[in-house]
């Protein structure tokens, strides 16, 4: 049964670290964390949930331990693995909202699609180098596909190959947590798109409108067929 404040966090890395820390003590009743990776020393500058002692250990195990230490009353569970189409719907239906901090666009679009199909608000973000964005998508507002249409192929930088500055994901993760808490308290920030550019010292908010030809909002996408995500990844 879905209670009022159950949050699914996809990715326990650079974005997920501040999201998890901030939500843990903000009145959220339950957090489920999804990640398939281990702690890597090269990521510690931005993955602030972890220490050098955690290197090589499961991020899910470490993240759950940190969350329990931060907030003993918080209910926490972990899913060690990737967020995939076969389990996405069931996971979403158990939660009030999803906060996404994945580092690949296929997962971002999968989260957007699954959340929309389940009627669950999605808070999403992306960051590379010195800048990034954060978006709030409510079931009746613009979604990630209204903004970027489909999974880009080629020429897209990810933090895995271009890197990302630690404070950038810190700020964007903080923005995601703020958007999540606003949704949980009944506000409707759907369509808000925040842009952060650390080099310019600029934080800006714009508003994404729903596109009539958005395949998700128009109902064209009605399932999570795996090839929609894997084909783009393989391209």
């Amino acid at each position, binding site marked *: 049964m879905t209670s009022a404040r159950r949050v699914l966090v996809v990715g326990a890395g650079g974005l997920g670290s501040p999201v998890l820390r901030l939500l843990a003590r903000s009145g959220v009743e339950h957090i489920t964390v999804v990640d398939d990776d281990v702690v890597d020393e090269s990521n510690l500058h931005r993955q602030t949930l972890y220490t050098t002692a955690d290197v090589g250990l499961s991020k899910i195990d470490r993240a759950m331990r940190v969350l329990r230490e931060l907030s003993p009353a918080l209910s926490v569970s972990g899913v060690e693995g990737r967020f995939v189409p076969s389990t996405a719907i069931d996971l979403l239906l158990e939660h009030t909202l999803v906060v996404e901090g994945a580092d690949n666009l296929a997962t*971002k679009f999968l989260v957007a699609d699954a959340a929309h199909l389940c009627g669950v608000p999605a808070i999403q973000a992306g*960051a590379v180098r010195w800048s990034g964005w954060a978006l709030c998508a409510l079931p009746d507002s613009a979604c990630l596909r209204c*903004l970027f249409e489909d999974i880009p192929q080629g020429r897209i930088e990810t933090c895995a190959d271009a890197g990302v500055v630690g404070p950038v994901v810190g700020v964007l993760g903080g923005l995601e947590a703020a958007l999540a808490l606003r949704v949980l308290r009944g506000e409707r920030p759907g369509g808000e798109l925040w842009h952060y550019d650390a080099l310019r010292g600029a934080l800006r908010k714009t508003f994404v409108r729903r596109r009539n030809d958005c395949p998700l909002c128009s109902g064209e996408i009605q399932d999570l067929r795996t090839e929609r995500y894997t084909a783009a990844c393989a391209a």
Partner: protein
Amino acid sequence: MSVTVRIPTPLRTLTGGADEVAVDGATVAEVIDHLEANHPGMKDRLCDEKGVRRFVNIYANDEDIRFLDNLETALKEGDTLSIVPAIAGGASR
């Protein structure tokens, strides 16, 4: 007529690191053409044969040009164009 174009970090390799450039043009299309002339390679990063690439957003001031006149959106002196590309990043994988 000069407008200011905000360049996102992934495209700053084409502008010598500049985060903002002043470009002439009365429409978004003209600005992109001038951007290409001054910073070769830019147009290909922003547009394909159908228009603006689907994973790139261009805002005229704070409005998505898809809700205006797309590449034919008229600009006036002092306007700002912002380019917002799709980027991933957060977890380590």
